[in-house]
């Protein structure tokens, strides 16, 4: 066995003329938390569905634990847990009935069934609500139950398609604690999200845009990758006038409002910073802060996607 939990090679899915997934190639190591990011409609869910064998790829290859998804889908399904974007447990069954059903589906051995069920209930903190109708649970509880059901058979790899969408920040935090816990016990987690702050929790990331993976690496690799430009943080007394003034400074590539200040993308940070200082001083604008900063993942992704869009246009 190699150390890879997942391999995708040139996965393509087209619906008629529309190419939803365009030659995606990925490798995920065992125990990794692999984040799959991108705007809505980028092809994240379609990719995940192909990796799980729910969708047949137009072309390309997907291997889970070294098993070809197209050749032995049943064996693959035994090895994975899947949580779809849309809640997909039975609302008219109780918490416990849902767990029992999926334990049956995954063929959890009889002697381990109770233990797994209690584990899932405890993990989802639904022990006291085991007899409640699933439909009566709120969104966050439902998501945790869905995660509990997806790991009943202790699958080595777990696919979570936007597990935290529509869930409040506190529950999201709890959810990521669970994911980290699972990763620590050797589970591989493939998780898609469009929350950029969640990207920081992942070991490695892929950024998807219009069906293509446009960036791949660890969070810090991605932050440093944007080497052609640097980012300056600029806080001043007159942000709007500052923006206007910056348009005339050579070396400034882009200016964006960020919190109470500005993020200025520049070519040559030291020289450009000096020019900015002169320009603003001449315009009688006070500079509270001007320094080179490491871009956040959000900066990186936004600029990457904008770059892609510019290239396409």
């Amino acid at each position: 066995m190699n150390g890879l939990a997942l391999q995708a090679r040139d996965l393509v899915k087209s619906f008629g003329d529309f190419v939803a997934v365009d030659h995606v190639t990925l490798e995920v190591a065992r125990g990794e938390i692999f984040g799959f990011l991108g705007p809505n409609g980028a092809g994240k869910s379609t990719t995940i569905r192909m990796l799980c064998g729910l969708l047949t790829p137009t072309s390309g290859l997907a291997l889970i634990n070294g098993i070809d998804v197209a050749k032995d889908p049943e064996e693959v399904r035994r090895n994975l847990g899947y949580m779809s974007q849309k809640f997909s447990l039975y609302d008219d069954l109780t918490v416990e009935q849902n767990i029992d059903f999926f334990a049956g589906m995954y063929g959890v051995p009889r002697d381990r069934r109770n233990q797994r069920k209690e584990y899932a209930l405890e993990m989802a903190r639904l022990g006291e609500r085991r007899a409640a109708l699933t439909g009566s649970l709120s969104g966050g509880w439902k998501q945790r139950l869905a995660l509990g059901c997806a790991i009943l058979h202790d699958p080595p790899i777990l696919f979570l398609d936007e597990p935290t969408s529509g869930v409040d920040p506190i529950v999201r935090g709890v959810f990521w604690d669970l994911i980290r816990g699972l990763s620590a016990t050797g589970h591989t987690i493939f998780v898609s999200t469009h929350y950029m702050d969640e990207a920081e929790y992942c070991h490695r990331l892929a950024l998807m845009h219009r069906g293509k993976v446009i960036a791949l690496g660890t969070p810090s690799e991605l932050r440093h990758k944007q080497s052609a430009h640097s980012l300056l943080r600029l806080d001043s007394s007159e942000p709007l006038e500052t923006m206007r003034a910056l348009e005339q400074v050579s070396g400034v590539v882009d200016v964006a409002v960020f919190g109470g200040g500005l993020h200025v993308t520049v070519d040559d940070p030291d020289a450009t910073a000096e020019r900015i200082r002169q320009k603003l001083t001449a315009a009688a604008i006070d500079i509270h802060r001007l320094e080179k900063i490491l871009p956040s993942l959000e900066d990186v992704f936004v600029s990457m996607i904008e770059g892609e869009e510019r290239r396409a246009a």
Partner: protein
Amino acid sequence: MSFRRTRAVFVKELHHITRDSRSLALALAMPVMMLLLYGYALSLDVDHIPALVYDQDNTSASRDLIRQFEGSRFFTIRGFPAGYRQIEHDINFSTILIGIVIPRGFGDDLQSGRGGEVQLLVDGSDSNTSAIAIGYAESIVQGYSARARVRNVTPAAPPPVDARMRVWYNSSLESKNYVVPGLIAVILMILAGQLTSLTIAREWEMGTMEQLLSTPLRPAEMLLGKMAAYFVVGLVDSAIALIIGLVVFTVPFRGSFLVLVASTCLFLFGVLCWGIFISAGSRTQVEAYQMGMLSTFLPGFLMSGFVFAIDTMPKLIQVISVVVPARYFVAILKSVFLKGVGMSAIWDQMVFLAIFGGLVFWLAARKLRNQKVA
């Protein structure tokens, strides 16, 4: 094929069924309502035909003939007009179905051995009933005139040939005796088709199908598990229909209970699989419901031979009816209820039911196998 997964699906479906008490109540009340409604409404017996008699002859012979009509349970004489106008009016207003005109000289004709003739004016807008009414009236008139001729002309001669009919199996010729067993078959077809026709479409609509497809569950296991759960409901429905047939409609049951159970199981299996097949081809419950209704209701009523004889239908319809499972079940139920025959007389119908069940199971499993998230 995993027994454990099949059983898990079965248990889950039972939870759905018992949770949704309104649908369950409806599924159990349906056979009662339909049997009572159709059982009483679909009486094909023609008796107490409203009639008017215009007696132009007014002799003892004509009055004697009128008494024959009055004595028959097939006719109810509503009056004795003195002309055609009243008969025409009443036929137009549908208050009578037949007018009987006994012409002047009827008694004399009988007396002289020429045989009497009677004019019948019938409302032909309901051709079926009027043909039956004509038949009854003719037989009364002919019987009467034959007897009169024998009496008057050659008192010593032996009577003409007298054919006596004996009807087997439904000796009282009551239509309910053959309508109700057939009706049970048709109702079970509609019900069973309905029960399962929503089950796959619902999984799609709720988004739960995606989760199911991500598990190792196989199509045949899903099919069998779901089928088994609704099979239980179908059997209860069958028992309800049977009891109503026997108790309320007092249909005789002459056959083997075992044959009844075996054929019912075979039939339910086929039709439940049909419902799942329909469901697997639909992505919404509305679509599945309409397809289910369309493919069970009309063929069930029209092409099962439960009232309308298949032999007299156009060739094309006859060919189509071969794939209507109710056709075989209707034949089996009529045989089991009325004829009391054993397996030997209906095995061919059973084989057809088995073939249908096997074929539809295979089709449904194949359809489920091809289900992918789109």
